[in-house]
């Protein structure tokens, strides 16, 4: 047996041990989609920039098609086409604010991945756990296609396809397909597919579950077969455009990019696309015939097609927007799927918040008025009655409510305030407010990145494994 297969078995065993209490076996999920053939072929690449710390350690791992930035360590792991984006890690000497504490960060934070298998996964942000400030750990964890591990240290967990954990430390948990969890700290939970759970203890609790049958049209992934459904087909149909940009060493942008904006060389742009000032387009984003107004951003694995984003729009990791017009300052959360039709466009009014993992897929023209909170699955204009509420009315909730499939307890005003603060922070971090001298963010800093590639052993027992590599300034 080759080393890479031994490594796979070792990871499966470690994760299963952690998940034994939940009686969850990860092997049937992973074994069908682990692409050993491709894993020995693809190079990995890392970014070098004056704005980010440079410190990589890779040992006994496969990193095929994966991207690294910042300070990352990968040991005994298999990473396939994953983005390990360490451009928001904490810096030595900074203060981490938690409740009434201001805790000094003693050294530059590091993303530390050990004994894990990540497939087409995005790792971003920084550890929000006050107990592990300098280490954003991902250990004994398996994550499937298009999962997001965002500011969430993880130990002994399985994340299904299109699952997101956000600002949450997770231990010994199963996060179902297309589930979004932002709950601070959780352990030993098996989260059903299609759950959207946002909790701040003592302040609010937002809980929604997609109807199983309806969701399966979009993503269906069960033991013994690869992920299927509309989300997978959608990405597969556009896969070819990415192959070209990964095959070429030097890429020139095909469209004009303002000098205060950033279009990643591993992003795809097609047709008449406009990149406004202070715009950030991250790697693996796909923009076609679309207008990105000043200060907007498109994160990893985003698809924006035949759409117009007026400005200061946040399009979080994995979001898909087609045939839509979004007013200013609209936030679209992780992995949301918003699809109008050429003859039935989707209009979203300014300052609206589209919750993470929302599906809007209408064949009729659909308009969401300005200042609305939207969640769940909307397939007709009538569905808006049970899947949206004006932000003003939501702010007035002060005990609890249930609307359609949504259960909410706590303060609506606190909930909206938390989202508003987060959106401002994201815009700021992405450089949306850069004024020519101050408030630089990723849109300005990420222009100055060059990329180096690294390769695995081509033959022998170590075929597919990358040699031990330590890269320092």
């Amino acid at each position, binding site marked *: 047996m080759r080393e890479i297969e031994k490594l796979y078995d070792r990871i499966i065993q470690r994760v299963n041990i952690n998940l034994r209490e939940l009686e969850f076996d990860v092997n049937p999920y992973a074994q069908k989609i682990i692409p050993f053939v491709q894993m020995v072929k693809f190079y990995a690449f890392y970014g070098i920039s004056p704005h980010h710390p440079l410190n990589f350690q890779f040992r006994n791992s496969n990193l095929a098609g994966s991207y690294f930035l910042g300070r990352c360590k990968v040991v005994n792991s298999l990473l396939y086409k994953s983005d390990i984006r360490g451009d928001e890690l904490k810096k030595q000497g900074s203060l981490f604010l938690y409740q009434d504490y201001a805790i000094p960060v003693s050294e530059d934070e590091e993303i530390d991945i050990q004994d894990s298998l990540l497939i087409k996964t995005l790792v971003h942000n920084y550890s929000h756990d006050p107990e592990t400030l300098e280490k954003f750990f991902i250990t004994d964890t398996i994550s499937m296609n298009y999962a997001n591990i965002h500011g969430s240290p993880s130990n002994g967990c399985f994340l299904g396809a299109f699952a997101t954990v956000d600002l949450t430390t997770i231990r010994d948990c199963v996060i179902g397909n297309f589930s979004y969890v932002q709950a601070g700290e959780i352990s030993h939970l098996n989260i059903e597919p299609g759950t959207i759970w946002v*909790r701040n203890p003592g302040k609010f*609790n937002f*809980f929604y579950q997609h*109807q199983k049958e309806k969701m399966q049209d979009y993503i269906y992934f069960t033991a013994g077969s690869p992920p299927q459904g509309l989300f997978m087909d959608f990405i597969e149909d556009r896969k070819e455009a990415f192959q070209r940009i990964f095959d070429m060493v030097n890429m020139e942008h095909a469209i004009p990019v303002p000098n205060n904006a950033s279009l990643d060389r591993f992003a795809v742009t097609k047709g008449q696309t406009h990149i406004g000032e202070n715009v950030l387009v991250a790697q693996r984003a796909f923009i076609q015939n679309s207008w990105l107004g000043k200060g907007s951003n498109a994160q990893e694995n985003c698809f924006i097609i035949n759409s117009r984003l007026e400005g200061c729009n946040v399009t979080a990791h994995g979001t898909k927007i087609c045939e839509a017009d979004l007013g200013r300052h609209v936030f679209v959360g992780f992995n949301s799927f918003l699809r109008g039709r050429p003859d039935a466009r989707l209009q979203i009014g300014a300052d609206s918040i589209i919750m993470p993992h929302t599906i809007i897929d209408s064949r009729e023209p659909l308009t969401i008025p300005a200042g609305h909170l939207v969640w769940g699955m909307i397939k007709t204009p009538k569905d808006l009655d*049970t899947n949206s509420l004006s932000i003003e009315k939501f702010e007035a909730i002060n005990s*609890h409510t*249930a609307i*359609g499939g949504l*259960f909410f*307890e706590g303060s609506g005003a606190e909930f909206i305030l938390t989202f508003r603060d987060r959106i401002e922070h994201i815009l700021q971090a992405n450089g949306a407010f850069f004024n020519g001298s101050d408030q630089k963010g990723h849109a300005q800093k990420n222009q100055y990145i060059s990329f180096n590639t690294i390769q695995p052993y081509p033959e022998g027992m170590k075929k597919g494994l990358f040699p031990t590599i330590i890269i320092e300034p």
Partner: protein
Amino acid sequence: MNYTAKDLMMPFSEYATIPEGSTLFEAVLALENTKIEHGGAFYSHWMVLVMGKDGKVLGKLSQLDILRALAPRDKFTDKLDEMGKFGFSSNFISTMREQYRMQKTSLESGLMLSALIHLYPEEYQTHKSSLEEFYAQPGTLNMKVEDFMKTIAENEFVDENTSLDTAAHMMFMKNRLSLLVTREDRFIGVLRLSDVFSAVLNTMKEAVSEEKAI
């Protein structure tokens, strides 16, 4: 007085039992018909023992277990109950449950019925469903006691010579309302919380009066 478990227990022969295979309705009747005289007073048992064919205790059935078995439940109420683990308060869960019950009984549209239709459309019924109707269903009445009894855990047995304070300790540490008293491997009686509490109270009162006498 130095009480032991055997001094305070209710002997097995006086305790309410039903054989395995009995139905929920038989268990309800068994509990109702167990007014017994003990120590000069009449008591109602709050628990019956489920006996196996070999004469061994298989499990126990309390009023709480029967209420649990008689609680109308469906996928939606199970979902509401589960929400505790997602951090929702008990007050929230009972409020939602109460709203659901009202809407199901009246079939007047409301937030809970709309949540039910969202999550489990196949569970929605167009006829009003009352509690009485549910209690009288053959499926409810004929449930076997083995399906909702509590099996006896190892730390629920206590030797007949165990002292009062150790028995009391076992009860409050494990939140037990009763312990099964054994002689060697044989089960001989039930030590109830009320018996232990009365004995502790008596001992305390005796000690106080002796103190005063000195």
